[in-house]
């Protein structure tokens, strides 16, 4: 394995982590429309909290996908064709929620607003769940053939482990979203978000324990890479504990940062366990390794130069865009919400 190959494996992991940090709270806010808002005005306020950003956040997923295609074509091809049905429904969910922001704002009738509000909620629920399922299956191992194609049956995709993984990711996103709401809103919505988070954090810990147990049982993570796996796992738990502490002690920023870090930790755990593979085969001989899955050194070099130049610029203006919107959304009913 060359340094560039290693670097790009790390970068793909990083892109997915940033994606979950940013888009994770968008999903959470989308789900919370049906959990803490009591009327369309309140839903409007929740949406405003992520209005200017959700689209930019989603680009992290697109970049992760594009970068995977560019740096690991064999991984991209196996993963995306192998999880055809799962990814199709992820796309479907992303389509529904993506248009719902704009369509909801154009809807005049209450029914119209509700319809697109539901589309947002359902899309925001299904996307992280299915992503969780897919990533769990990915580390669990799939029936890969010698040419790198998955041909699995339903049980290979949907099973106890992957469902627990899906639920865990969904729950993490929901909590992350609630923490963003606490940060961005004031008044009743903020209080309800906090109340719900207080209930959900204990549930999350149960979920995490089950997930960790299954991870121990179903994967070779803790055998092959015990030190790093245990370290990351402990960190994940620690991050969640801090986020919970913030929830009970009214420390909004703290909760938000650490619920985001928890999500990043989960991605890190999975990528750490994958290494040095990119796809785990049920038959270990068919696993796809980093060193066999990448583009040429030349292409990786080009990509590295491009990333070194562009990523700081992207980060700079993205952060700037957050800074200029860094104020709370009005708690009062907005006048004449159309």
């Amino acid at each position, binding site marked *: 394995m060359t340094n560039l190959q290693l670097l790009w494996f790390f970068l793909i992991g990083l892109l997915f982590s940033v994606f979950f940090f940013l888009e994770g709270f968008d999903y959470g806010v989308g789900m919370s429309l049906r959990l803490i808002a009591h009327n369309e005005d309140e839903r409007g306020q929740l949406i405003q909290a992520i*209005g200017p950003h959700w689209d930019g956040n989603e680009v992290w997923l697109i970049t992760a996908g*594009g*970068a995977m295609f560019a740096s690991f074509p064999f991984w991209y091809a196996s993963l995306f*064709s192998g999880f*055809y049905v799962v990814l199709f429904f992820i796309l479907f969910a992303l389509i529904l929620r993506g248009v719902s922001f704009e*369509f909801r704002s154009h809807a005049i009738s209450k029914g119209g607003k509700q319809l697109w509000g539901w589309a947002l909620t359902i899309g925001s629920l299904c996307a992280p769940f299915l992503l969780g399922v897919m990533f769990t299956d990915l580390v669990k191992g799939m029936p890969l053939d010698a040419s790198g194609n998955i041909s699995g049956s339903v049980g290979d995709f949907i099973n106890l482990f992957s469902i627990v993984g899906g639920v865990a990711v969904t729950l993490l996103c929901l909590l992350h979203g609630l923490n963003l709401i606490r940060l961005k809103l004031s008044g009743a919505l903020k209080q309800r978000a906090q109340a719900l988070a207080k209930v959900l954090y204990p549930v999350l810990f149960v979920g995490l324990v089950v997930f960790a147990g299954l991870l121990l049982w179903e994967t070779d993570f803790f055998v092959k890479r015990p030190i790093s796996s245990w370290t990351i796992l402990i960190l994940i738990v620690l991050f969640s504990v801090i986020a919970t502490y913030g929830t009970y002690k009214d420390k909004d920023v703290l909760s938000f940062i650490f619920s985001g870090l928890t999500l990043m930790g989960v991605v890190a755990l999975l990528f750490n366990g994958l290494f040095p593979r990119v796809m785990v085969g049920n038959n270990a001989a068919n696993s796809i390794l980093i060193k066999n899955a990448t583009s040429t050194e030349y292409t990786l070099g080009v990509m590295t130069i491009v990333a070194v130049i562009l990523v700081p610029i992207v980060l700079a203006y993205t952060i700037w865009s957050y800074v200029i919107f860094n104020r*709370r959304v009005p708690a009062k009913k907005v006048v004449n919400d159309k």
Partner: protein
Amino acid sequence: MYVLGVSLLSLARFQFAMTTVFHFFFVPFSIGMALLTAIMETIYVVKHEEIYKKMAKFWGKIFLLSFAVGVVTGIIQEFQFGMNWSDYSRFMGDIFGAPLAIEALLAFFLESVFIGVWMFTWDRFKPAIHALFIWLVTIGSSVSALWILTANSFMQNPVAYRIANGRAEMSSFAGLLKNPQLWVEFPHVIFGAFTTAAFALAGMSAWRLLKKKNREFYHKSLRVGLWVGLVGAILTVGVGDLQTQMIVKDQPMKFAATEGIYKDTDSPAPWTVVEKIDPKTHKTTWKVEVPKMLSLLTYHRTTGSVKGMETINKELQEKYADKLGTDMNYYVPPRTLFWSFRIMAGSGAFFILVAALGLWFSRAKKNTLQNKRWLLYVLGLCLWLPFIANTCGWFITELGRFPWIVYGLFTIADAVSPNVTAGQLWMSNSLYFLIFTLLGATMIYFSHRTLVAGPDALDQSDGYGTTVDPLSKGAFSHD
């Protein structure tokens, strides 16, 4: 494998065609609308006339609708290479991936971040700064076209690569960008995009003028649209001519099909305006011809013959004998290409004419457009024509490349994912079809309603359903 009488390959191809054609309704429209909005806002900054600010806000709303649908259908594009064309991805990844990743890093972030900023900050920045945001969006979306077309140009005309380890490997990134195909395809698409939005906007304005609503507003909008449309169409047609010269050399079968020529022509070659083509017997009837014209169009000379599809088929069979055997059939669907070309090129000429007429009759000195209802109707119909022209263009480009997915290197049949089943494809095809119908209908419905409500219904809102700038002073409680 066949399910319900359709082969897996056909299902995959149909799905690709459906998703890209649908996506490409919104891409050129959004690119062009960003430019038009930017132009309007810039006029406002320069002239300080409120009406131009109103225009930017109003057309910006329709732009945002289209942008939303464009974004969500765009994610499909990126995913489907891996999902449906995994062997293609393996073969092309070393070349295709880099432009795609750069497109995301350079273009998608720029447009999506600044679109969010632009939407919500009308009252927070100086007008000139605020206009800069929409220009950044315009640049972002135009640049995105450059990168994706870099990949497409490679598929039309592979350059700067070597074949090794069973795949195409990039030998020079600069070489990839210097592909001559790219430097006709990109301008053609981008000027086509400006033209598309310009005529769509002019068409929408014309319908409102027919109803005699908000005359000044729609009159001014119409004129901005027609100016951009006129320049855009002239440039699109000009570049289109260069493309023709190029495909005669690089993809002769595509060219012969767009002209419906089976047998080699005489020199000078006459140009067939219309004809009836029978792909089985290779007979062409009902010809209307213009003498010498094809030589003129193809070579810019009054002499020169053009090769027919039969000759080209033989030549290709020889050329690729070791790859695909000697009995491979290289014919591309002649009727689709012939008529697509006529519709596309015909609309190009039509746009120039209509824009010139519209600008002339609506000139400041003597504006008689309002009384020329026929012209307003014609302009109104131009709302739809560019979308058809774009689709026809892609039919030519993509169908004309058969049997190759990467010209001369890799066939479509080899590219499809081997493990995606026909049943799965039926499901995804049907569900995509359903949701596209829903999205398209909703988008048209909301645009129509925005149009009918007119600029006076514009509230202060720029975001999702608020009437106050959430971030203006005093609109929120600090705590």
